[in-house]
């Protein structure tokens, strides 16, 4: 047991740990129980995504984008195809746009369910985690019905989607939404308003708005600090400007603005907003042919594009450089969870060991996306 600087202890929250969301190594310098510095060590899950993309064709990149953020694979696909369509200047049919939005929002609900459930697990509540997984399974069953896969879909292609919606899709989707909406109230009663949970999360790990902006944190983490910024409203892509939904922000419900509870609360509210969007999209779903605007050969003109979309983790950006051939020259993915992890050191100064894992859980990171 090494001792550094008098009575400081270096502790390794090692790559194998039940609570790091993936393989992440955190080197924590503590004084008894109080943390003074955290150094994250990354790279355990690096799979050379960006190098692979330089060797395979544009449509073959899509299975690789799935595997980066594996909890929100539809949104990762979405980001890539939106960037490609901007590069190639393709205008899509209405039906394709609506289908994409439905899938992306359902995946947002699924990803938030897992993020919130795993956070409850970190804090010690085992039952809400299993309940949320049970509801997530129903969403995954809907995805399986549409595109055959539960987690890594390869569904959104450049210029369209790979398959049309199967029979009775609207009925099944509405049935799920009607089943799921009261469940959110049940989760609130079981976990959110539980006094022990509030004691654990309120006032802990406060991320002030200016610190968040200077680190480049986006998405739910930024909205939890009170900044109203959502790419779907600020730089709308696809048909998000047609839907009527709010942007929930943290409101210091039980503690200071920007603490763990606010980030958690924003995720719960975002699930409700996503349900609203899916309902509106299902109601207005037009008919049409989805393969009309799909190019036979993907050969974009020379140039580059950077486009960002809103994934459940934050601001997902794709920078694609094309040199006119069928194989991209460079694909870079800007990962929102990476910036969220970078502010961990600053916001956990002075808190205890149990709080470090609590704060890490509230940032909702996915190592696949951080390490690509």
């Amino acid at each position, binding site marked *: 047991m090494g001792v550094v600087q008098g009575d400081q202890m270096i502790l390794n929250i090692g790559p194998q740990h039940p609570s790091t969301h993936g393989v992440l190594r955190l080197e924590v310098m503590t004084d008894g129980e109080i943390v003074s510095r955290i150094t994250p060590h990354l790279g355990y899950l690096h799979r050379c995504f960006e190098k692979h993309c330089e060797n395979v064709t544009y449509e073959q990149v899509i299975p690789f984008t799935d595997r980066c953020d594996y909890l929100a694979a539809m949104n990762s696909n979405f980001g890539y195809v939106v960037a490609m369509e901007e590069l190639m200047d393709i205008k899509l049919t209405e039906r394709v746009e609506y289908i994409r939005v439905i899938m992306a929002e359902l995946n947002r609900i699924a990803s938030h369910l897992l993020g919130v459930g795993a956070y409850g697990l970190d804090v010690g509540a*085992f039952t809400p985690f299993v309940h949320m997984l049970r509801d997530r399974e129903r969403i995954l069953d809907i995805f399986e019905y549409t595109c055959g896969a539960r987690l890594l879909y390869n569904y959104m292609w450049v210029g369209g989607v790979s398959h049309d919606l199967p029979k009775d899709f609207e009925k099944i989707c509405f049935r799920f939404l009607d089943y799921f909406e009261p469940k959110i109230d049940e989760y609130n009663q079981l976990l959110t308003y539980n006094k022990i949970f509030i004691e654990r999360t309120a006032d802990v790990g406060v991320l002030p708005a200016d610190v968040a902006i200077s680190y480049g944190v986006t998405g739910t983490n930024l909205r939890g600090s009170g900044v109203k910024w959502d790419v779907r409203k600020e730089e709308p892509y696809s048909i998000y400007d047609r839907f009527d939904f709010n942007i929930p922000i943290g409101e210091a419900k039980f503690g200071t603005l920007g603490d763990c509870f606010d980030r958690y609360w924003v995720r719960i509210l975002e699930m409700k907003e996503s349900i609203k969007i899916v309902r509106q999209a299902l109601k207005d779903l037009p008919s049409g042919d989805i393969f009309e605007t799909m190019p036979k050969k993907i050969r974009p003109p020379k140039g580059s594009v950077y486009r960002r979309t809103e994934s459940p983790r934050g601001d997902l950006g794709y920078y694609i450089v094309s040199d006119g051939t069928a194989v991209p020259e460079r694909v870079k993915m800007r990962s929102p969870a990476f910036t969220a992890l970078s502010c961990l050191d600053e916001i956990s100064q002075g808190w205890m060991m*149990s709080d470090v*894992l609590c704060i890490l859980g509230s940032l909702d990171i996915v190592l696949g996306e951080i390490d690509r």
Partner: protein
Amino acid sequence: MTIDFIINQFTSLIGDFPVVAFLVACASVGGLLFVLMALNAMVAVYVERKVSAFMMDRLGPMGQGPGLHAGKWGILQTFADAIKLLIKEDTIPKSADQILFKVAPFIIFIGAIIGLAALPFSSTIQAVDLNVGVFYIIAVGSIGVIGIVMAGWASNNKWSLYGAMRSAAQIISYEIPAGLSIIVPIMMSGTMNLQELIQYQDGSILGIFPNWIMFQNPFAFLAFFIFFISAVAETNRTPFDIPEAESELVAGWMTEYSGFRWAVFFLSEYANMFIVSGLAVAGFMGGWLSPIPGFLNSPVLGLFWFFGKVSFLIFIMMWFRWTFPRLRVDQLMYVCWKVFIPIAMMNIFGVGIWKLIFG
């Protein structure tokens, strides 16, 4: 009483060998208590898995269909687990403190099994009828802390040390409200002897309610809750399971133990649950008396009532575990010292005044 009974039988049947008689009586009763501990652990583990599964909308261990691979309803699952633990390889880390590592499980086990010796299972079945039964159980319950700290230190593992330190602080702190709350039945009945405490609760209030100490007095009701929750904290169960917090410390102070050594820890955790529930039942809920005052009281039925009430309290402990998140260490200490102890002291005061006014 059972040990005295056996010693008398031995002396009358075989002859006047006091030392041998004592050893035979202790060995047989100790064996029975060990069997009780093992059976309790097996049943409690199975019930815990099933209860947790049902609360999570899943089924837990099941075994159905051809082959019955875990018995119908998964009953044989605990047997399979026990056999697996017995035949597992015994690994001790090389840099661990060898002697302390091996001795720690023994100490915890001793703390658990001698606590079982004073519980009144029925009016005639009790290992030893001590005159200071309540005091004895509370005192013996704190032997476990030594074992836990030894286990945490000897593992030579920062995580285990964390868990052990937290556990030591927690158990020692929560002994105080538990002790203060158990004074309430002692004050009301005037005796520390468990059998007499239960006899005091004979009879009925207003003819229909049983005359349990819990119901006699609103302060006693409050004292029961404080005692029960402090007991949950003493046995390291959620929401106070910060020493063995799974998602933070992998397994806390038990991380380096595997196989049979871990089974001993496990056994003593469930035995501790049984002991504190048994004490709560004897002190507050009428022990082996039946809930319907006056009827169905006999030495054999008393056993049934005792085990029924203890099982109910153990079920409530499991209910707590699978519903609540866990408290952080400093919040735990806050709850103990700033909430429970003032309320417990107020209880003693209140019970005294109540008794003075209402007799």
